[in-house]
């Protein structure tokens, strides 16, 4: 386990971020969240992004996922340069190659679990519709052990069950990169352990590249690489332990 910004292999990178800066607000209230962050992630890597609240790790994850804009620097995901890419190209990338898992699950209560899982198919141009999507959705739910509850609404589920449905949604369409923001933050420790184990398998057996923002020691212990952040920058290896675990309370990620 080491902390470094460069990925190990020479294979085409999944994520290539260079000198990324990001700030929120204007004038005196302006907060610099990222101060020139560089990070490479190679295919098949399992990277844990750790750091205290407000260190900028969630912002970095959002920028890599195309959910937020960067102020300066370069971000390329699967070779797509975000500064030059259209919103539609980024949306297509998210739809087809990236899966998201959030701390707050973000399931739609108006939909059944299955419909939540196959939601990405709705935005896919010319994708196999109807039965094919349903079959794939059920298969994803089976993988996370939720096939029996496919017709339930998320409001009827426990936190762990919700997160498994959310993971099934993230896996729908077979993404190559999974971006997870505190995926175990709202789960009890037993359920959290199961989820982490699931991610480890996913990474080792299916070769899915994982970038996980986390507070959990357990996650960083199974990750192939731990990248620590403090005050909007990636800190050196010797600072990893302190940066990762200086803040033991698992708070919601604060922006400013």
């Amino acid at each position: 386990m080491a902390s470094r910004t460069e990925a190990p292999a020479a294979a085409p990178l999944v994520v290539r971020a260079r000198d990324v800066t990001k700030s929120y607000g204007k004038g005196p209230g302006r907060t610099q969240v990222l101060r020139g962050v560089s990070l490479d992630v190679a295919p098949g890597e399992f990277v844990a992004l750790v750091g205290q609240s407000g260190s900028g790790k969630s912002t970095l994850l959002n920028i890599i996922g195309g959910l937020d804009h960067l102020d300066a620097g370069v971000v390329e995901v699967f070779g797509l340069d975000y500064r030059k890419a259209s919103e539609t190209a980024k949306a297509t990338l998210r739809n087809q190659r990236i899966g998201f898992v959030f701390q707050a699950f973000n399931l739609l209560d108006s939909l059944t679990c299955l419909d939540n899982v196959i939601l990405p198919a709705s935005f896919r141009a010319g994708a196999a519709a109807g039965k094919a999507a349903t079959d794939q959705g059920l298969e994803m739910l089976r993988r996370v052990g939720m096939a029996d509850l496919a017709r339930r609404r998320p409001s009827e589920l426990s936190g762990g069950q919700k997160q498994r449905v959310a993971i099934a949604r993230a896996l729908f369409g077979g993404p190559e990169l999974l971006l997870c923001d505190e995926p175990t933050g709202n789960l009890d420790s037993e359920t959290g352990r199961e989820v982490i184990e699931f991610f480890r398998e996913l990474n080792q057996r299916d070769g899915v590249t994982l970038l996980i923002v986390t507070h959990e020691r357990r996650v960083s212990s199974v990750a192939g690489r731990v990248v620590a952040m403090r005050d909007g920058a990636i800190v050196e290896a010797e600072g990893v332990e302190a940066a990762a675990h200086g803040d033991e309370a698992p708070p919601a990620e604060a922006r400013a």
Partner: protein
Amino acid sequence: MRAGPWLRIVGRNALRNRARALTSVFGIVVGIGFFVLFLASTEKIGAVLAKVFPLDEVEVVAPQATLLGADVSKRLDAHTVELIAARPEVVRAVPRMSLAFPATGDGNFEGQALSLKIDGSADGVDPAHVVGDPSLSPADRDYLDGLFQDWLDPARRGTPVACVPPPPGQRSSCPKPDRQYCDATTRTCEHRVPVVLSPAMLQLYNTQFAKANGTPLVDADFAKFMLARGGLERMRFTLQLGGGSTGRSRAVEAVLVGISAKAKPIGMTVPIQYIERWNREFVGDDAGKTFSSIVVTLAARDQVAVFSQWLRDGLDLRVEDSVGERLATVVLVMRVVLILIAGVILLISAVSIAHTFFMLVAERRRELGLMRAVGATRTQVRSIVLGEAVVLGVLGGVLGVGLSLALAALVDGVVGAYTPNFPFKPDTWTAFKPWMIGGGIAIGALFAMIGGYLPARRAARMEPATALSQD
């Protein structure tokens, strides 16, 4: 985005909160309700007016003028008719001639005595103009064609049969007593003078006379009515021509043969040849050649101005201000005003929809952000929000059309029950056309779309990370 998933998402969203959906489309329902009702009622009023006052024709008259006490008015004569008919924009020019001397009519109808002063309220027109009226039913046309003719035309009259006028109340000895009478002046059997009345007169009769005297209502389907009642026997009367200042008088018998929009609106109309002969006989040769007006059919309505100009400059004549034209303008203005009112209601409802949808977008930030995260493009998010507005707009439009139909039925019921009969009182006060219903629904959707536009744009522009980070 394919239509199936889009419809599923939009439909689900629209139905998710039914109470609010109904509240937000309330304005659209009311706006479309009044919009369609206003269209349908003004359509009906316009149609009734067009029936009473045909708009495809203009009437040319000679202005009355005197110079140093002498009448220098232009005369309308056969030459004027020829000049007008030669104009390229004129399809047809039909002269009318009014009776130029006093006359009275006496008859009875279903046992009720009718006595009328006629004078200028009788006129004549080319029979072909009446028989060729395209608004006539085929049965009425056939019926009129056989009766509304100049029966004194030598070719039609043949050799007159001499007769002795019978005492009052008795039948003549003429060969066709149901059609002919024994003329007291010429002592020959003559065909009764055929008379047509306008729909306005029919309405007056049905709503006033028949009600007051208990006589049967006359069907608009005149031929059927007449044939069912055994022909012409009961619709005849005596015209007393002349008298008073003319110093002489004689009687002819006349018979009502039909209802025609080409007849004088208030008065009676006979074939023009009769009026020409009578005016010559009682007033003089000139009176038998001077028309009271010329009814001109133009190829297109927008040529009225060109034609009027030519008429004024070339012939020193003018187009009679048509009552129908003026009323049509009133109806048009009324329609525009009412539609503007409905438009204001719709605009307010669009604002209310915008308000609702701004709240809705704020409430659903997280959901919309998630859609973006799993691959929805900005356009797709916009189309989902706009689509929901359109679904509600269509729903509002359908309910609005329903509301207008219900209001129309209510108005018809109330007016029918609480107002007396009057001429041209219609059974229904509205004329709903398919385009009004389709247009009402489409406009409902359009205004909902206008209301949903800005919220949808805001939804599409939201940064997914921001949307997902807030509760």
